[in-house]
């Protein structure tokens, strides 16, 4: 046996992750060894940390880099998604600063756990093998289970955390079972090697079995039907900034992971997974549209809305083309930014220093806070897909891709459910503008919420004027994914 000195793997491609990992440990130490309550400083520190990571991601050179023995990959696709994730989770931390103080749950672990969850999401996006995929996914999920239950004295928050944990563990089990089957029948856990083996001949049934289980596990993470049951309860029970986080960054990360797995490891058996994706896409769109109609709580409404939006994004994936991937990325970008606006509005729904969450509480908002009401209405129109707002373009790209790939039925069902879904978004607008005014909310809105809402609203309204950067970045990412 010869003894070889191990060489240090190239750390450059994983630099943003290393910054987040080390930085979150430093924040943890700072919080733990300070006698006074440091939640606010740690929150600000976590936002700065994520911004630093974002800059590092942005200045990484173009092109594909692998490290850690091919387990970790950084390419144009992963970089774009990482920027989205970092934006999503840092805005969630900013939104939480005021909330956790009001609700008496101001503890420094909150931003630290969000940062660790973000680290998990970045690792998911850069995973180039089944094991690194699972590690990233589990790091993300475990941190999210804890922050769902963060308001531990509240029964509903604890229930949300427990429910999310139990169902999440079940989905992880399915994912692992599928991964073990794929490993058994292809002989590798690395995406490139799996793709190579599958490209050689007729795929074995074992691999398809494994693929189905993997898809079930991943569909749980994007809360696609039929694995959506946890979503409304967890969204409603979790503290509102946590819901804002759940609706944004983890969804983007999980969607990117699905893209990476399907196009990285299973491009050879596209017809097989296309059927699955078409089914969960249709089911999610339809359920998202119809189940949201009867909701009175705005957080539950947003839960069904996010189920529906995941269905729309999956339409692009079902197309299975570069256009489709581009559509998914554009859709997720717009979805993420719009969601920030929605949750800023929900967070500012406070009356007599208490949060209120029902849709009827919004009545008369157009008179007490005209600017907020206008931006909120625009965001709702965008979610419904009304042109020329941003949401319309997201839907346009995914449906075009589906039509180019000949999936006419899927596109038609998508358009129909989008029209049905428009009903409940417009109902919110109607309540704000035409219903008898309720007691106005506490004024003024917190500054940071106002700024985020403004940015989100302006992006939504003026996306049509300058869509170039987003579309070009998405094109680049799609090309990188299909390398």
């Amino acid at each position: 046996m010869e003894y070889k000195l191990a060489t240090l793997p190239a750390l450059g491609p994983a630099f943003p992750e290393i910054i987040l990992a080390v930085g979150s440990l430093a924040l943890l130490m700072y919080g733990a060894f300070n006698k006074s309550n440091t939640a606010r400083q740690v929150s600000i520190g976590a936002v700065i940390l994520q911004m630093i990571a974002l800059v590092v991601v942005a200045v990484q050179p173009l092109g594909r880099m692998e490290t850690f023995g091919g387990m970790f990959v950084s390419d144009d696709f992963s970089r774009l998604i990482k920027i989205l994730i970092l934006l999503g989770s840092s805005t969630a931390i900013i939104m939480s600063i005021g909330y956790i103080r009001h609700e008496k749950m101001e503890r420094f672990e909150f931003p630290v756990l969000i940062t660790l969850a973000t680290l998990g999401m970045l690792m998911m996006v850069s995973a180039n093998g089944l094991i690194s995929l699972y590690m990233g996914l589990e790091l993300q999920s475990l941190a999210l289970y804890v922050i769902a239950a963060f308001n531990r004295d509240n029964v509903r928050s604890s229930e949300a955390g427990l429910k999310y944990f139990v169902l999440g563990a079940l989905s992880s089990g399915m994912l692992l079972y599928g991964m073990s089957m794929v490993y058994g029948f292809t002989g590798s856990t690395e995406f490139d090697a799996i793709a190579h083996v599958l490209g050689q001949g007729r795929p074995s049934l074992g691999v398809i079995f494994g693929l189905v289980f993997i898809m079930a596990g991943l569909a749980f993470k994007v809360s696609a039907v039929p694995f959506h049951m946890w979503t409304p309860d967890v969204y409603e029970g979790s503290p509102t900034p946590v819901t804002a986080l759940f609706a944004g960054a983890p969804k983007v990360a999980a969607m990117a992971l699905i893209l990476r797995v399907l196009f990285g490891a299973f491009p050879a058996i596209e017809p097989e997974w296309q059927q699955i994706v078409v089914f969960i896409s249709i089911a999610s769109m339809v359920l998202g549209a119809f189940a949201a109609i009867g909701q009175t709580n705005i957080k539950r409404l947003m839960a069904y809305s996010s189920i529906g939006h995941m269905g729309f994004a999956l339409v692009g994936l079902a197309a299975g083309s570069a256009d489709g991937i581009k559509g998914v990325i554009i859709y997720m970008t717009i979805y993420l930014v719009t969601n920030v606006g929605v949750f800023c509005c929900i967070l500012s729904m406070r009356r007599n220093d208490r949060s209120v969450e029902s849709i009827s509480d919004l009545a008369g908002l157009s008179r007490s806070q005209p600017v907020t009401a206008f931006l909120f209405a625009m965001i709702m129109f965008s979610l419904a897909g009304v042109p020329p707002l941003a949401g319309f373009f997201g839907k346009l790209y995914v449906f075009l891709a589906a039509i180019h790939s000949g999936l006419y039925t899927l596109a038609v069902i998508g358009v129909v459910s989008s029209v049905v879904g428009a009903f409940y978004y417009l109902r919110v607008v109607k309540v704000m503008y035409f219903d008898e005014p309720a007691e106005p909310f506490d004024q003024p809105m917190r500054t940071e919420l106002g700024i985020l809402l403004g940015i989100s609203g302006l992006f939504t309204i003026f996306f049509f004027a300058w869509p170039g950067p987003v579309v070009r970045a998405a094109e680049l990412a799609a090309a990188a994914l299909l390398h």
Partner: protein
Amino acid sequence: MIVTTVAFYLFAAITVASGFMVISAKNPVHSVLFLILAFFNAAALFLLLGAEFVALILVIVYVGAVAVLFLFVVMMLDIDFSELREGFLQYLPVGALVGLILLVELALVFGGWVIAPGAAHAGAEPVAAFGALSNTRMIGFVLYTKYVYLFQAAGMILLVAMIGAIVLTLRHRQDIKRQVIANQVGRRREDAVEMKNVEPGQGI
């Protein structure tokens, strides 16, 4: 060869049977004991595969630590498990039926099973040739080099688990007595002990 086969079926059968007993035993303590039996037999299965390191870790970690912890929890928590599980066996026939249908379907599918060419080879030697190295040595060679990324990631996951446990359960209660080491150390003999001269036959 035949001995290995017999051993495999023996250990596998006991594992499955004790797994069943874990969920059907009336007494929760018995459940945990059957769980320990299941762990032991799973470890034996690993030994048959030649994975002695995993086998011993399974015994040490799961039997030595996890199962014993379970036992403590089961004994200390005042939960009426039989009430919790009431009606469980009622659902068993339906559950068993569903399981049976799944099994038959799986069997039908497995009938047309084809293994991809080259898969058998690729799976046989996931890391470089073992040679005469022991499991432990081989894991030592790759864990901190080839798999360092996963090793560190696992560390982060455990850290999150630890933070989570503390965040969700630790409460700083004000109304209980705490150990103050400075007071303990600063205590003098004169404060604590009083000498009494007890007269014989009178008591204190």
